[in-house]
């Protein structure tokens, strides 16, 4: 699924500039625990999270994730957006909660990360 479709399906706002909306996300992973993201996510996945700190961007970067979708409608900290912009990590923002956002994306055909362990 492309970021453009993600944006359309969940009515997301794009917070960073110059995002390539044709970029594909292979699958999605939702978590508020950064170690879980580091341990279980896959390169190229979309990260869904309710955390708003810059560490979210660092974590997604270290784990080679394709983009971040912030959920629950809380506005992220300004330094979070700045860091994402700085390293070129697309940052999206959706109003609804994790469950609803994940459900919409899943129904639209985006799969979760398959656990291999």
């Amino acid at each position, binding site marked *: 699924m492309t970021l453009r479709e993600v944006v359309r399906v969940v009515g997301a706002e794009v917070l960073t500039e110059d995002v390539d909306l044709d970029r594909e996300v292979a699958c999605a992973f939702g978590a508020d*625990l950064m170690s879980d993201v*580091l*341990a279980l996510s896959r390169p190229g996945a979309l990260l869904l*999270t309710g955390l708003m*700190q810059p*560490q979210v961007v*660092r974590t997604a970067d*270290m*784990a*080679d994730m394709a983009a971040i979708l912030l959920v629950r409608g809380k506005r992220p900290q300004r330094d979070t957006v700045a860091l994402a912009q700085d390293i070129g990590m697309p940052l999206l923002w959706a109003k609804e909660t994790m469950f609803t956002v994940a459900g919409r994306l899943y129904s639209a055909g985006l799969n979760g990360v398959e656990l291999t362990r």
Partner: protein
Amino acid sequence: MSSSPGSVDTRSLLQDSDLTKAQELVYELVVRQVMTTPVVSVQPDQTMHELGEKLRAAGIAGAPVVEQGELIGIVSMNDLINALERGSRDDPVRQWMTIDILTVREDDSVIEAVKAFASRPVGRIPVVSAQGSLVGIVTGGDITRGLVRALDLDHRSDEVSHYRASHIFQDISSHDTSLTLRYTVSPRDFSHSGEASAKVKRALQRLGGRPEAVRRVAVACYEAEMNLVIHTDAGGEVLVEVRPDRVSITTTDAGPGISDIESALEAGFSTAPDWIRDLGFGAGMGLENIRRCSDEFSLRSEVGSGTKLVAVVYLGQGNRLGRAPRS
């Protein structure tokens, strides 16, 4: 065969911490990247008159003299003028050429050519291969154009530096060459935490690491760095040693130390306070993550004196850092 007249003290140049980009490039570019090829050459038995025709046709001011594939001299417009003044236009080139010639090797750094030009008032220097055969020629203009081109490329993208970094171990030979990256990590500084690991990741990418291996190093390093941020009294140090085939991550700190290492290594064990958990850390998965990402792992700790963690990631077959891929 490489000439090294040594009239320029390269050490004093290098010590200047203020090296400009162009100065750096003089060291980083090799002669092959700036030289002109193919070379217009003449044979020793051609006449000076024929030489004149050849230089005029090619729009050049001098040419190497080659006999049976071997470089035996160099002859310039100056030699031609002298010969014509003496009315010796039918003399063979052999009589007027210079035989005591400077050469540079194609894999020499451009600085070698610059030094050669500084040592003698010559306009062009033949470039030879490792086997000594003539492969090109280099003039001051070639060097200037080469530098401008490289600067321009540098400006447009990261590619040149990527190229340079990706070859860093190539020409350096020792029994064990490594590149050391050292970072100081402050305790509870969440606005900068992860920066060291991000820099390590970029460095490995520039060195040509495969994404899968770079990711393992990045994740291990990040978890280890976060432990310094979260669990130490005074922060610590992240030391990353990069070798062509593996990357070692070492973190050290001066306390408080871990009282029960067995438990600490268990997935899910954490002593992190709630406010750390609110930041998405402190799930007790960090050490387990580091272990899973690395091929060698050790954790030593003493309460009151500190903790030392070492994680080594092997890069796997066919992925050697700092070397050009075989083409």
